[in-house]
């Protein structure tokens, strides 16, 4: 009999706030963190991206001493800050044995972009013949996982998953299975991302998927995504262990489904995401009718939202009309490899607080998006189980299933 796996600790820093309370408050209030872009000078390169969901007021010196802050790129700083919060929140006393049996599985799509871009700027723009010596260890995508290990003294299996916008869901799903199958007694898992550099923003701009104003998922007048950043980590442990120590349980992670579209770099399919949702339901042992909420991938692009809506309808048939479906990217932006982790936490809110977070900035129904998207205002509702969808460029889909306890 496989072990059941529960979430007992949560840590988060996003554009919505620097801790869980601030994030939940903003999600409940439907208060979007999309604002004019700050701290990136794109004037020389005619940067058109004007709005973003950035983490504001974050001072690394408050979190890292003795010059350590300079050894971590911003994305890795977010990893550590979120992991520390999650461990404090779960209240466990880490023994030497447990430290060796705790896994760290993190998602990041692009790693330490600030470090590598600063290095290239030194080379090509500033005419310096040298690049900062920490460029490599700050840029590597596994830096988040490595710094969590060093910071918290965790010595079990540790790695980073990089599957673009599905990274965190693949990470959380992998951690769930490791704990379920007894390969780890505990896991810290989630994702982090921080990529607001001129080069990265110009690269996103070139894809023509960024909204000129705000993110309006599923709304007829949607114009694209708004980029975000942040980090979110959660602690997974076996249900029995959590019960034995009297831990507070947010919810159970009960299923994970992943598929590849095998179709196109950027155009999604209905079938790939639908098969991932079906796989997550099957592993969870949940009937479609037991799901009450879906945290959608919901990027707000013309391409994603109708396809995702059709995929949901394909899986849930008539029950699709009874689902609450929202995209919290309208609130915290699209944080790429951290997106699934931010959204998993929004899904926990739905399950354990009985509040379905809304799709913000929704103005007009689109005939091609015909589900209940919880427009603009959160909704009190007790749901027993929920899905959280993440679909990546390259057609890699990852869906998590959660159940309330």
């Amino acid at each position, binding site marked *: 009999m496989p072990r059941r796996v529960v979430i007992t600790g949560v840590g988060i820093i996003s554009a919505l706030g620097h801790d869980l309370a601030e994030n939940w408050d903003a999600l409940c209030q439907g208060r979007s963190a999309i604002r004019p872009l700050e701290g990136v000078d794109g004037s020389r390169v005619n940067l058109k991206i004007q709005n973003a969901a950035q983490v504001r007021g974050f001072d690394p010196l408050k979190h890292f001493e*003795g*010059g350590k802050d300079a*050894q971590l790129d911003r994305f890795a700083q977010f990893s550590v800050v979120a992991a520390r919060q999650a461990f404090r929140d779960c209240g466990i006393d880490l023994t030497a044995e447990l430290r060796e049996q705790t896994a760290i599985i993190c998602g990041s799509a692009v790693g330490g972009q600030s470090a590598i871009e600063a290095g290239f700027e030194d080379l090509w723009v*500033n*005419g*310096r*013949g*040298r690049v*900062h*010596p920490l460029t490599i260890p700050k840029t590597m995508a596994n830096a988040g996982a490595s710094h969590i290990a060093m910071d918290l003294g965790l010595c079990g299996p540790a790695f980073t998953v990089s599957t673009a916008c599905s990274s965190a869901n693949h990470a959380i799903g992998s951690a769930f299975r490791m704990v379920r199958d007894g390969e780890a007694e505990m896991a810290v898992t989630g994702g982090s991302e921080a990529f607001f550099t001129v080069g990265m923003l110009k690269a996103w701009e070139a894809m023509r998927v960024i909204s000129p104003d705000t993110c309006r998922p599923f709304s007829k007048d949607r114009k694209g995504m708004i980029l975000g950043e942040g980090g979110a980590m959660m602690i997974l442990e076996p249900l029995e262990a959590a019960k034995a120590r009297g831990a507070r349980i947010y919810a159970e992670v009960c299923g994970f489904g992943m598929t590849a579209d095998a179709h196109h770099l950027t155009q999604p399919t209905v079938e790939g995401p639908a098969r991932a949702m079906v796989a997550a339901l099957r592993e969870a042992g949940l009937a479609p009718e037991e799901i009450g909420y879906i945290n959608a991938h919901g990027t707000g692009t013309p391409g994603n939202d109708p396809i995702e809506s059709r995929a949901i309808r394909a899986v849930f048939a008539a029950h699709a009309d009874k689902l609450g479906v929202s995209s919290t990217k309208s609130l915290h932006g699209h944080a790429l490899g951290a997106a699934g982790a931010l959204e998993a936490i929004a899904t926990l809110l739905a399950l354990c607080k009985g509040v379905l977070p809304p799709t913000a900035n929704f103005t007009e129904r689109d005939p091609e998006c015909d589900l209940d998207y919880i427009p603009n205002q959160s909704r009190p509702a007790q749901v027993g189980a929920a899905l959280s969808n993440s679909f990546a460029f390259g057609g890699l889909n990852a869906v998590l299933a959660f159940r309330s306890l």
Partner: protein
Amino acid sequence: MPDPVAEKVIATLASVKRIPAESITLETNLQEMGIDSLDVFSLLFELENAFKISIPDDDVRSIKTVNDIVEGVKKLLAAAPPETSMGSTSPAS
């Protein structure tokens, strides 16, 4: 007698470790003050930029105290004129 090279080395080290410059002297042992190899690499990078010199890998291995760094920098400054930066644009720093 103020020594501009020593002052610059100490100020850079203080900045890398985020500690007050007053807590560092020429005799300070790097290992004892918790300076690890990554800190040294960051320090050397800043000094190379500040003094427009190139510090060879071989010189790095013998560094133990702040004074070792100061002497090493002075030796390099005396041995060669400051290297010119690559490219035609002036550095933005």
